[in-house]
């Protein structure tokens, strides 16, 4: 529905070279990348607000690479909402509607519909400077939706909100997107936000699109160390994968050999999610499990969950609940067994 082909854009710190991307109609599409990866510039380039060096931008079967931004049908919600400070909330929302050939009645109806959708009737006469972050965000979204765009771009729409608002606004965004069947392209650096909202995620880093897939795919099978690190898989190892006569396929991760399941051989990376590791006082015997002995070097309190680092001497970060931590009575310096399935180790 909206697509880029071989797009090359100067992103500031990086140059995006020959990027390909396709966003389907009605999809909630996430572009995930670290701060400074040029995510905003990429959105601006697709919206015609930033020069493109080469490549094509397609929308609904039409090449819009050279089209003026006002004719592209892309709504834009900026990080700090970019409301026009000299216009009231009402006039902000009407700005786009007035640029179109609507009758007064149509304009009034559109305004009423947007106001109802986002529940901002009480804000209409206010100036943007008096709004809270959450309110400004709603107004900005109403304004972006006002022109009935093909797609709405959201540039880090949640990052200026406090944590409590974030979760609520996140739900509202998802809800509105679903209800309208509106295509959203949402840029963020927050992996959890991406997983929570996205139908699909594109990971942007170091000037290229590193991986595209469903959250599950990106989460479970990062295709590179960059994505894995970004996906907050805390355990990432590098080492040699080889066949072992007695144990099948093993990987040497810094002096410790673990069983893995993969067709790949040679010098590779492995990722292991902290929640896939089991901690115990006694050794668990099971053919499918890797079992190692180590010493607890760090216990990090994360609220409901706790990260326990075990040195075997290779470090394993394990996720345990507060309850099991207390049941096992784990403290720093204790000797423990760590166990995980060979299939839990993702090789890439």
């Amino acid at each position, binding site marked *: 529905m909206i697509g880029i082909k071989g797009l090359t854009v100067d992103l500031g710190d990086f140059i995006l070279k020959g990027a390909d991307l396709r966003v389907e109609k009605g999809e909630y599409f996430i572009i995930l990348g670290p701060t400074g990866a040029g995510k905003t510039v990429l959105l601006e380039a697709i919206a015609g607000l930033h020069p493109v060096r080469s490549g094509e931008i397609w929308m609904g079967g039409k090449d819009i690479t050279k089209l*003026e931004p006002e004719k592209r049908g892309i709504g834009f919600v900026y990080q700090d909402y970019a409301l026009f400070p000299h216009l009231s909330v009402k006039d902000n929302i009407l700005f786009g509607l007035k640029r179109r050939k609507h009758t007064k009645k149509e304009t009034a109806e559109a305004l009423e519909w947007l106001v109802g959708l986002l529940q901002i009737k009480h804000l209409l006469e206010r100036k943007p400077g008096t709004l809270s972050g959450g309110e400004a965000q709603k107004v900005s979204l109403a304004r972006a939706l006002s022109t009935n765009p093909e797609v709405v771009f959201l540039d880090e729409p949640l990052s200026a909100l406090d944590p409590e608002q974030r979760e609520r606004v996140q739900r509202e965004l998802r809800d509105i997107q679903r209800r309208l069947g509106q295509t959203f392209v949402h840029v963020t650096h927050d992996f959890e936000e991406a997983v929570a909202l996205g139908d699909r995620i594109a990971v942007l880093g170091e000037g290229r699109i590193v991986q595209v897939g469903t959250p599950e795919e990106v989460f479970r099978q990062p295709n590179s160390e960059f994505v894995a690190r970004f996906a907050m898989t805390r355990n990432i190892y590098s080492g040699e994968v080889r066949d072992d006569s007695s144990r099948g396929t093993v990987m040497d991760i810094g002096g410790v050999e673990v069983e893995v399941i993969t067709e790949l051989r040679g010098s590779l990376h492995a990722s292991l999610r902290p929640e896939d590791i089991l901690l115990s006082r006694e050794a668990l015997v099971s053919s499918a499990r890797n079992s190692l002995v180590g010493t607890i070097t760090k216990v990090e309190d994360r609220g409901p969950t706790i990260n326990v680092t075990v040195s075997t001497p290779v470090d394993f970060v394990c996720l345990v609940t507060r309850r099991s931590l207390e049941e096992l009575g784990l403290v720093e310096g204790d000797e423990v067994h760590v166990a995980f399935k060979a299939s839990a180790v993702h090789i890439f």
Partner: protein
Amino acid sequence: MVSSERLKKRYSLRDALRWIVQRRLTLTFFLLGMVILLFIFIPLAKILFSSGAGELWSQLLDSDVRNSIWLSVYTALIATAVGLIFGVPLAYFLARHEFPGKRVIESLIEVPIVVPHIAAGIALLFVFGKLHFGGKIFDAFGISFVQEIPGIIIAMVFVSVPFLINSAKQGFEEVDVRLEKVARTLGASPWQTFFRISLPLARRSIFGGSIMMWARSISEFGAVLVLTSSPPIASILVYRGLEMYGIDYVLPLVTLLMITCLVIFVFLRILYYRGKRA
């Protein structure tokens, strides 16, 4: 009882000393600031109150005086309008684009502030004089700049437009580019974006710059003298009077000129700050 009172007194004295010592920077700066304020204020006040109401009234009855003050006011206004038409687009361009040589252009804009105004007038004469190319071009439209009102205007524009350009440029720089970008995605053309977003948001800086340009124009002397000494603007009338009849003769005229400028200036400043609050 007595001793406690004494203690109290000693304490408050020490307190006062400490107060002074702790605020020595503020106090020093306050005193230095007062010197320069009085330096500005006293001469102005002396001129303002040196002439009686009767003298000022008789000055107003003099048609030469009235004509020259009126000439100063409206040529300065036209100069400011010219500055707006040509200076604001340049200011916007400079605020939005980076290009090699930009610093050179920005410096060039400020040159008229630096050069002696007599020199500026002579430089203009070398372009807009009857025998020079600028003069010839405008001559075809029946416009002459030597000993004519258009000469006053171009002299004023030359020496005072930098104030407007710089102020407007700063105003445009303060307008978030993303506001313009959003306007474009909402269907506004570049022109609509400029007139509905950029210009309204920079209007205060532009207005402030216009006040400065107008004020600088109405006080111009050197450059105007070279191009058009007659009809005389107010400052030239003062100069002539001073040369021919001496200081006592021109004092009421100077007072009148100053009052006129101050009234208009203060009025514009009030408008400016009203806009700021809104």
